[in-house]
């Protein structure tokens, strides 16, 4: 019985990782950069939603909408100012370091604006959740909503990338920027759009993260950001379905490891599993094998 309840807890943690990983993988897949600031955009989204609810008294849905708008704008601005000038730099590491700079920047701006004190987040999910097996197993409303949100986002994103014009442009840019440009695709616009979508997802992720684990500080996004990054790599970075599966698996492994092996060593265990997976499948669970050109 406790095994099933651990599994459910793992699912609940994993669903949060998965929704963050979706944003990570989206940006990586198209722009080919590890956006280390993604976790901090999540934190900003959560603060915006919280303030819209507590200070402006808006409904949860309106608060999420505002958070999405603010984060989308933020994502576009960050991309334009900090990442775009380095797109053609001689090393791809340059933009990685700038992303770290942006991450520090967002954390410290939040520290000055919102203070160091933790704030208790109000859940946007008002539903109590499911109760199974005579009340001994409970699945919280947040978990159900997060998983459903994940699945919807995954389906919409897959459809968007596969079937729509801008989506095709994204795939083209991801394959070969130069060739895409020659085909008349607006590369800058497409990458900006990717960041806009990624940041909008970050806002949703932030709200759902803080609904499940209602404590918000300027550093809330950092650790889930790293974990979600691991989840994205685990599933095969760049793959939308991979991020979903990677997130869920990571959550389940973390919880089961803590339950059955050692609560102090759960982090080491998660990373060890990641290493083993990558050694067996070097591009993650669902990652595409890259052909090397000579």
């Amino acid at each position: 019985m406790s095994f099933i309840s651990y599994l459910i807890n793992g699912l609940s943690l994993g669903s949060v990782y998965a929704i963050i990983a979706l944003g990570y993988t989206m940006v990586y897949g198209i722009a080919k950069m590890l956006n280390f600031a993604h976790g901090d955009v999540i934190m900003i989204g959560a603060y915006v939603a919280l303030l819209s609810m507590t200070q402006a008294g808006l409904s949860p849905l309106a608060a999420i909408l505002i958070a999405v708008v603010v984060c989308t704008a933020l994502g576009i601005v960050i991309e334009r100012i900090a990442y775009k000038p380095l797109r053609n730099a001689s090393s791809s590491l340059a933009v990685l370091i700038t992303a770290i700079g942006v991450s520090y920047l967002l954390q410290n701006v939040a520290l000055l604006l919102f203070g160091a004190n933790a704030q208790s987040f109000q859940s946007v999910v008002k539903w109590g959740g499911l109760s199974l097996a005579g009340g001994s197993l409970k699945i919280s409303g947040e978990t159900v909503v997060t998983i459903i949100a994940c699945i919807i986002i995954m389906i919409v994103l897959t459809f968007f990338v596969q079937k729509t014009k801008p989506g095709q442009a994204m795939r083209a840019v991801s394959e070969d920027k130069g060739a895409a440009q020659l085909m008349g695709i607006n590369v800058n616009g497409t990458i900006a759009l990717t960041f806009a979508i990624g940041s909008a997802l970050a806002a949703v992720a932030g709200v759902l993260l803080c609904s499940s684990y209602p404590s918000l500080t300027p550093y809330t996004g950092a650790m889930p950001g790293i974990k979600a990054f691991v989840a994205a790599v685990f599933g095969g970075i760049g793959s939308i379905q991979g991020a979903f599966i990677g997130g869920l698996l990571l959550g389940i492994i973390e919880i089961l490891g803590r339950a059955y092996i050692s609560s102090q060593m759960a982090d080491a265990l998660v990373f060890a599993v990641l290493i083993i997976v990558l050694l067996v499948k070097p591009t993650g669970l669902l990652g595409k094998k890259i052909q090397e050109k000579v």
Partner: protein
Amino acid sequence: MKMLKKTASLMLASALMVSLAACGSDSGSSGSSGSDTFKIGGIGPTTGDNAIYGTAVENGIQLAVDEINADGGINGYQIEYQFEDDQSDSEKSVNAYNTLKDWGMQMLVGTVTSTPCTAVVEETHADNMFQLTPSATAVESIQYDNAFRMCFSDPSQGSASADYIAENGLASKIAVIYNSSDTYSSGIYQTFVTEAQAKGLEIVATEAFTADSKTDFSVQLQKAKDAGADLVFLPIYYQEASLILAQANNMDFAPAWFGCDGMDGLLALEGFDTSLAEGLMFLTPFTADAEDEATQTFVADYKENFGETPNQFAADAYDCLYSIKAAAEQADITPEMSISDISDAMKTAMTEITIDGLTGKQITWGEDGEPSKDPTVVVVEGGKYAVLQAE
């Protein structure tokens, strides 16, 4: 290669600029020595994960300094005060200490967190600078005779908690959830378990979490629940405790909860559902809801100045300043004295004074630097703290 050369030369140029700036700032700060004010420095994390504690201490000291200065200062001398950030990192803490030394600091209030404090105490010991930490709980943090502390040490909190639980028959089966990557939490945990076993308490589950995974506590709670614990001991800070209480509520787990001084601040947490904390007991020297006049005034002033309810860190820091004032008056020190002379005079004076502070009445210090004060056990009732028993 061309670009690299260029980068290098540019970096060199900027290095020169930076070092020039360094020289500039040095000469600016070392100019004002031998003045007629006491220079008191503070160190703690005001950025990074632990910023909340450092900020509280910074503000608590500021409040006390302003009051003392308005009242005519120490021995007729005004206090100058500067606080430096250490991000709760030993190396940066030593940097902060050196910065304050350059500024002309004569006494140190800090550092806020334990591990950096243990690193800094080596430095203050070498310089023989008087040090009073508001909140570093590790035993080694004040291992030299020039260092004192305002808060309880880890061992004293751990054993006091176990004693209280045993004497009042609060529980037969105890679970502990602690932060294994935190010095404060694991320090209390160790002495708690040792003392609890000595008192014949049964500990049925000890579960840890780490700084890298402190959002989900379902496993720890499930294990405590499965082990049939009727009391869960939480030697942790209130942010994690707020999550633990919420998650326990979700899984219909309702044992008695017992915490330490890190729990203070829980009810002031913005947006926290206080009904979750109903019945929570914890050992603390300070609660912002206390009825006495000193606390009421302090809380009101703090709110007015900084817009928040003060926690025990702020109260400890505030008490630190008044303890320094009392000891300085006892020793009759003046700012003209050398740092080492001040330290020697303060060392003796600290063991002679008795303070009525926010965090305890009739506080005295031993030569080992440990305060002797009575912890109070408070319980959350109807969304407010109520004093259960002064031990």
